[in-house]
């Protein structure tokens, strides 16, 4: 058993007085990927934001590459190799496409040597190779791109820090099926290259086709955590775990 890249134990977090995620455990080895599924409001986005450091942990602990990062802020975690491609893409519309990419190249100082200007240029070239459309639009505004292009830019930006863990929040949200397939094709490529990933989706066969493990959240709790090969069939998954045919209330 290799040492886990990311290890989360008993994570509890929330907003104001309300706990949104409770007692979630998650462990990920280098190169491994996990799908985080659940209905709207199940706590998926809150969980990945917390792993990225945007929300404080109320209790529980988290280590990354063996280092305890429970109290580290998002800036520190970004420089350590955790990258979140946030919900709604959050492209900087006042920056050009290229500037969006450049801002993603975090000057890593903690634990990793800072990216040199040459490395940044190399990563930029790699992004353009991966996404020719971004090269074409590189001097245009980030807000001028279509939804699919924005998603690609968001992923490309998240990759500019050369992360070891990439978290993608609802990569197919609002995209036409063909475009979503393109995005997943890219995620598969990244997985082949050995990048560890957490992919958040409401419910998606696409996500399950990509990952090694699956965690289903409901009401902020993990109700299923299993390798993809051991998952129940899709209909059962939907009915029992995503609660699609139940009227059970979901806390948000």
């Amino acid at each position, binding site marked *: 058993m290799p040492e886990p890249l990311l290890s989360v134990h008993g994570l509890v977090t929330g907003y104001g007085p309300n706990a949104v995620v409770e007692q979630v455990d998650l462990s990920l080895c280098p190169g491994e990927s996990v799908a985080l599924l659940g209905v709207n409001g199940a706590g998926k986005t809150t969980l990945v934001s917390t792993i990225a*450091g945007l929300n404080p942990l109320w209790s529980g602990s988290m280590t990354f590459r063996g280092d305890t990062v429970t109290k580290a802020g998002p800036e520190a975690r*970004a420089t350590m190799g955790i990258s979140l491609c946030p919900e709604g893409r959050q492209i*900087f*519309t006042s920056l050009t496409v290229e500037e969006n990419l450049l*801002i*993603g190249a975090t000057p*890593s100082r903690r634990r990793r040597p800072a990216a040199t200007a040459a490395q940044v240029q190399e990563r930029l070239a790699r992004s353009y190779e991966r996404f020719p459309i971004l090269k074409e639009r590189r001097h245009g505004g980030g807000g001028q791109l279509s939804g699919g292009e924005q998603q690609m830019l968001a992923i490309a930006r998240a990759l500019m820090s050369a992360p070891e863990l990439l978290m993608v929040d609802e990569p197919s949200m609002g995209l036409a099926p063909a475009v979503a397939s393109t995005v997943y094709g890219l995620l598969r490529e990244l997985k082949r290259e050995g990048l560890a990933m957490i992919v958040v989706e409401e419910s998606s066969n696409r996500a399950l086709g990509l990952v090694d493990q699956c965690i289903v959240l409901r009401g902020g709790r993990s109700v299923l955590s299993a390798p993809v090969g051991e998952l129940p069939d899709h209909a059962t998954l939907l009915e029992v775990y995503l609660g699609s045919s139940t009227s059970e209330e979901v806390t948000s």
Partner: protein
Amino acid sequence: MTGFLQVFLDGLSLGSSYSLLALGLTMVFGVLGLVNFAFGDMIVWTAFLAVELTSIGLPLPAVIPLTLVGSVALSMFVGEVVFRRVGTQNPLSLLLVSFGLSLVLVALAVQVFGELALMFPSPTALNTVLQVDGLQISMLSLVNVAVAAVILAALFVLLNRSRLGLALRATAENARTARLMAVRPKSMVRLSFAITGVIGGVIALLWFMKVGTVTPRSGLDITLKAFIALVIGGLGSARGAVAGGFALGFAEAALASWLPVDLRGLQQALAFVVVVILLVLRPQGIGGRLLDVSR
């Protein structure tokens, strides 16, 4: 034609000051959502520093850098100790705190320096007026325009060509997402107050060299000019601030030279009327959309 050129020159000179002022306000507005109504009073304190430094016998070449350092220190101190503690949750509380700070700064200045106007150091060389083909322009105005051009160019390079500038713009748009790219909002707030401090220091020197004297209550006029230029240009847009500053400068110069003598007293009021008309026609200000670089 000469009249028109004269108005252009006057407007250029006024506009450079107003552009810098509006930029100073917009820098902090961008990252903190604060329109700092104490900006003018901070500039007045900086001007008093220059007066004091001169009165202890320092020559101008020493006064200028010390004044700039003092201005940056004051700006960062105020940012760190006053505004950052209030937090960004409620922009209204920041605004109220800035009003409060303005009152405190004025009252303190009255206590320390008295109500009387103090002479501001101004080298005679800068007060000479050049005359070319019937056009008049003072050396100070030329210096004003040149300094503004240098600062505007430097800021443009900083904002558009450096990682720090990118980080500042990204934070102004979406601080939460910028944090994911390892950009600390705290550092960006400090940076914006530092830039504002430099601008404030430069304005303190140029503005009061032109006016000739400084009083504890000189700040309101500066704040108002900065605020008008900012609103004309569109809040939060650096290019808008510059455009708004020059628009206000040219409008004032035109009103000053073309208004009938009887109405000159209304010049300030008429400038506001122009602002109101402009905002009715274009509520987002001139540069309200220029913030988006692609448009």
